[in-house]
């Protein structure tokens, strides 16, 4: 949303800057151009767009962008074309496209949207990209040249060639050449195949694939060879990608499970409400974004401490009100916390809504890190992966290096002994449970960027979390890390040939069999204490 | 791998050739024979090249400081822990290393735990009933009935351990000493050839201790008894033959007097206390 919004604002700023002679509105040629666009039947839209482009009006770009973003509307009564600034709710905020003047709110009933569809949007993107090819920033030029790939048609060849003459940046040149080559291969140009031979871009591959089916045997053969080399490279990339997918899924599992590794693994509380603590973290993110509208990134960062605190507070309440009375009855904690999980779910449904909530992904987390045309790593997952590792490291630090960690280990190993040494076991219990719950909240903050934020969020992760902790070995944080990452990777490796469902089933059966082989998980706790 | 080793060992009888519940053969020597046994946990050597033999009908006391490996040794004999190397034989026919805990128990090795372990949710009577030597497979257990002779046998043991008054009370309400006695009673019900008794008098009064000593000595002769104990006074009162364990292996062996004068033993014990 925010991109579009800022674009729109930018547009308005530009529009107002350019449209100095606002007084002479009636004579403004823009008015006719826009009216023409708004009233054109589907078949004439292209013409109307071309008219706008060729008018050379400096506002043209803004109009087209607004059009592409579905922001052009016509006032039913007057026929005036307006730009919609905010199109949420029943009343829309509109502005004059000619002057940029804000015209206030208008009921949706009064407005008629200027229709656009994907086909036209595709053309618009081509035109806009073409405009961007002249931008000063080489990155913008490169991006726009990349956008051109596969969109070049006969009319664009000449301007592109002209641009190529002028272009100095090598990357941009390459892109333009590839874009042209894709067009030429389509036209049966054999030479152009060489240009595409090394390209990993899907559009290049698409063009070659088409060429393979062409009637010209020479072209078909050459394209086939080019495809062969590409396929080789792709295989490698594909393997790297699968590994990344696996690690990414693994990091999600680790995040979801690591809090449980503390409450369940260290304290022995079979916390069925763990999933709901995750859910609270996710809802905190949503809440933060509601409090800070328009700043999803800041809200997300603030959600990290906030999510921790909210979930930790919930954890403390749960510990004080229920779990402390169930010392030494681990299986009964399962039942009580199951009840708590039901209550928390229904609480969210009643207080907030049974519907999923929108959590916005900040710009710096959307999109992907492009390694090459075939391999790009999605940013949100990369952040989550990093976040999981950071949380894990922090936890290890707390457990190993702080007094709390020492006390926690002492209390879990021998409660009475620890007590007699002056450790306040009750306090340690509260702190441990709060820590575990807080970490669950952190998981929720991260998951809000990947999946639904709704009342059922927790349920989807609770079983997986238990599997990870048990597979890794109860009471062992390293075990949880290794287990999460390896289960994630196994799952993703299996998925391409087994399908998503079967892969999951196989992983579960694998865990069941593994537990037969090693009843205490990957990294069992050893020694007398563990026999207990 | 270990299978292969077993098969190639000439001096071992194949398990499936050995009669299943054959009586313990002690014609050719000791009732318990341990040789070259090693166990380590996480790199810590709990048992280090341990050699031990117990003769039929003998009452043997085993002493040693904490961590000497006494309990681990019992775990090995009863099949709870598998040693890394070594051999453990019951009589000359039964290789204990190939058998499970229930098998070993049915062969006639009974064990009393360090911490008294009785079935707290069952009555004293039921505890003894479960311990009674009988067919312990599933269906016979399901259809088992309480025959008069069984009842007599249980009552007999109840009398021996002095818990007649409490026969229908839950074992959970017994005092620590009473639990110790109940567990000894359960051992008696099993009619074992070899009793392993881990710290039998912990938490007992002077009087109870005396009675325990009496009981254990009376058992010796008919059955072999191995007692692990900390209480030196108690050991002195019953022991004929004492083995001292230290760091997982035998430090000294002999009569109580011999052992207590052994300079090595003194060093270990004094060193501990110093």
């Amino acid at each position, binding site marked *: *949303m*925010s991109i*579009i919004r800022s674009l729109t604002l930018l547009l308005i700023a530009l529009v107002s800057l350019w449209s100095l002679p606002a007084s002479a509105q009636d004579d403004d040629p823009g008015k006719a151009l826009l009216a023409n666009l708004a009233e054109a039947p589907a078949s004439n839209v292209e013409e109307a767009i071309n008219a706008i482009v060729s008018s050379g009006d400096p506002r043209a770009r803004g109009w087209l962008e607004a059009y592409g*973003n*579905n922001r052009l509307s016509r006032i039913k009564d007057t026929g005036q074309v307006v730009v919609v600034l905010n*199109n*949420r*709710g*029943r009343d829309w905020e509109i502005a004059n496209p000619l002057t940029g003047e804000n015209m206030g709110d208008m009921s*949706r*009933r009064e407005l*008629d*949207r200027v*229709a*656009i*569809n*994907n*086909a036209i*949007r595709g053309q618009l993107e081509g035109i806009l990209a073409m405009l961007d090819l002249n931008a000063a920033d080489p990155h913008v030029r490169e991006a726009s040249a990349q956008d051109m790939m596969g969109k070049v048609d006969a009319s664009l060849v000449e301007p592109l060639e002209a641009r190529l003459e002028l272009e100095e940046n090598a990357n941009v040149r390459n892109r333009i050449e590839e874009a042209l080559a894709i067009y030429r291969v389509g036209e049966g140009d054999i030479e152009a195949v060489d240009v595409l031979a090394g390209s990993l871009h*899907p*559009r290049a*591959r*698409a063009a070659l*694939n*088409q060429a393979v089916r062409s009637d010209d045997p020479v072209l078909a053969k050459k394209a086939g060879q080019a495809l062969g080399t590409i396929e080789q490279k*792709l295989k490698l990339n594909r393997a790297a990608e*699968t590994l990344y997918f696996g690690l990414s*899924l693994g990091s*999600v599992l680790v995040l979801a499970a690591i809090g449980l590794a503390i409450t369940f693994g260290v304290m022995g509380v079979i916390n069925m409400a763990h999933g709901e603590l995750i859910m609270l973290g996710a809802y905190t993110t949503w809440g933060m974004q509601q409090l800070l509208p328009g700043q999803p990134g800041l809200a997300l960062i603030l959600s990290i401490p906030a999510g921790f605190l909210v979930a930790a507070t919930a954890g403390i309440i749960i510990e004080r009100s229920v779990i402390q009375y169930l010392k030494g009855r681990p299986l009964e904690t399962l039942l009580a916390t199951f009840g708590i999980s039901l209550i928390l779910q*229904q609480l969210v*449904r009643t207080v907030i809504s*049974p*519907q*999923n909530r*929108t*959590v*916005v992904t900040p710009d710096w987390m*959307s*999109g*992907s890190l492009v390694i090459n045309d075939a391999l*790009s790593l*999605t*940013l*949100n*997952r990369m952040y989550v992966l990093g976040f999981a590792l950071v949380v894990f490291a922090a936890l290890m630090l707390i457990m190993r290096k702080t007094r709390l960690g020492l006390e926690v280990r002492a209390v879990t190993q021998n409660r009475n002994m620890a007590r007699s040494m002056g450790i306040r076991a009750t306090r340690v219990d509260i702190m441990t449970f709060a820590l575990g719950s807080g970490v669950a909240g952190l998981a929720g903050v991260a998951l809000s960027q*990947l*999946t*639904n*934020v*709704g*009342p*059922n969020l927790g349920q*989807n992760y609770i079983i997986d979390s238990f599997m990870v902790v048990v597979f890794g070995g109860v009471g062992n944080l390293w075990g949880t890390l290794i287990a999460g990452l390896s289960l994630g990777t196994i799952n*993703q490796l299996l*998925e*391409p040939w087994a*399908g*998503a*469902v079967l892969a*999951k089933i196989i992983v579960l059966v694998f865990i069941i069999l593994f537990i037969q082989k090693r009843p205490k998980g990957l990294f069992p706790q050893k020694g007398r204490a563990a026999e207990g | 791998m270990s299978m292969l080793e077993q098969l190639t060992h000439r001096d071992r009888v194949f398990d499936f050739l050995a009669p299943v519940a054959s009586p313990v053969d002690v014609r050719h020597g000791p009732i318990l024979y341990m040789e070259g046994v090693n166990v380590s946990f996480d790199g810590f050597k709990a048992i280090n090249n341990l050699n031990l033999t117990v003769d039929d009908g003998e009452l043997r006391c085993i002493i040693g400081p904490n961590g000497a490996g006494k309990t681990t040794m019992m775990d090995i004999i009863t099949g709870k822990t598998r040693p890394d190397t070594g051999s453990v034989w019951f009589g000359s026919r039964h290789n204990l290393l190939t058998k499970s805990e229930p098998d070993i128990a049915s062969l006639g090795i009974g064990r009393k735990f360090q911490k008294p372990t009785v079935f707290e949710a069952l009555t004293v009577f039921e505890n003894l009933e479960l311990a009674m030597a009988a067919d312990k497979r599933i269906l016979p257990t399901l259809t088992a009935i309480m025959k008069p002779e069984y009842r007599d046998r249980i009552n007999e043991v109840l009398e021996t351990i002095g818990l007649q008054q409490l026969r229908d009370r839950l074992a959970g309400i017994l005092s620590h000493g009473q639990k110790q006695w109940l567990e000894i009673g359960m051992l008696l019900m099993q009619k074992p050839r070899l009793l392993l008794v881990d710290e039998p008098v912990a938490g007992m009064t002077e009087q109870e201790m005396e009675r325990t000593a009496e009981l254990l000595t009376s058992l010796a002769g008919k059955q072999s008894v191995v007692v692990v104990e900390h209480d030196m006074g108690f050991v002195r009162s019953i022991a004929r033959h004492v083995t001292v364990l230290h760091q997982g292996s035998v430090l000294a062996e002999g009569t109580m007097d011999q052992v207590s004068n052994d300079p090595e033993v003194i060093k270990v014990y004094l060193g501990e206390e110093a």
Partner: protein
Amino acid sequence: MTIKKHVKLGLSALALSVSLNAMAAEDPIKVGILHSLSGTMAISETVLKDTVEMLIEKQNAEGGVLGRQLEAVVVDPASNWPLFAEKARELLAKEEVDVIFGNWTSVSRKSVLPVVEELNGLLFYPVQYEGEESSENVFYTGAAPNQQAIPAVNYLMNEIGVERWVLAGTDYVYPRTTNKILETYLMDMGVAKEDIMINYTPFGHSDWQNIVSDIKSFGSAGKKTAVVSTINGDANVPFYRELGNQGISASDIPVVAFSVGEQELSGIDTGPLVGHLAAWNYFMSVDSDANYDFIDQWVAHTGDEEAVTNDPMEAHYIGFNMYVEAVKKAGTTDVDAVKDAIIGVSVPNLTGGYAAMMPNHHITKPVLIGEIQDNGQFSVVWETPSTVAGDAWSDYLPGSRDLIADWRKPLFCGTFNTVTGKCGASAGQMAAEEAE
């Protein structure tokens, strides 16, 4: 209840001259609402409960029906399929409701079906479904496959020029059937088998990395590719997020979804999804006064300025009004009379046209294709020139090609085989025989 009945009996004995209607005015018309308010389906179904309650309120404010007020009886089947059957029985046998509005998933409808048929109730089912069913007692106000899937595919094929197809769905009966129909249809239209990729995922699937990557490479074969998505509810958010993040834009590979409406989009940041498509019979953005009035009413009812409306809500709107009209026409709430009266009833829909109840208990609907906008709404890019009548039995499935449903006498059959000229022994038929 029993006392009431006695009073009723006594009254009718005493005053024979009193008209039935006047006497019945004592008793409200009971409307059962069978939508999950808890569990996994609550997310979709709660609004439908609210919708029916709103419609009832409005109808009562206008004086009710036949001079009688309407009364909602709400129960919670808790997203538990056997509980649906139990609650349906409770509504019909214990509460003695006159009509039920309810169900979302196919499995819940299948679970309720035998109960409704046995107890001769009326059920209005508001969700698009796989077809292959026509019951004497059920009115299907959602879309059948020919009212959603096939027009959508036609649009992609003719307007966008799609040649290569990914049919991605959640693994349950609606996607399975829809994809089966689409596969047959596409192959009839000359699409080669290797140009169709079918993929199923479990409910609530959240890790789409591999599948989206597969779609990406499937789409780089040189032919225009589109995804036809029958992915259910919760799994959509992570699916679209992954699409966006892996850089698949609507102009590369458009996704047309049959289960994603405004309600689902309200849980997604739609920025990266602009241009992806959905096929429905109603969009909240439809430009018609009936629609604007409905939205105003809905916002007032929920007290939430941001509240959205969606297709199944419109289906209930139509279904409810049809029921009201049919009761007026029949002059009674007697089930058999209403069943008879409702066929042919035509009421305004929210898109500016009319919906009519067909003899096969499906209704006529326009088919709209909408593109997702950045405000969580759809903008209509295409619609069928006229309304399409729902087809209970698909022409593209081998078993059902020859079947038709017609609940008018004398045919009165849900599975009439036009080749053999016989009525298959469907559930409804059995019940009818027993009743006679």
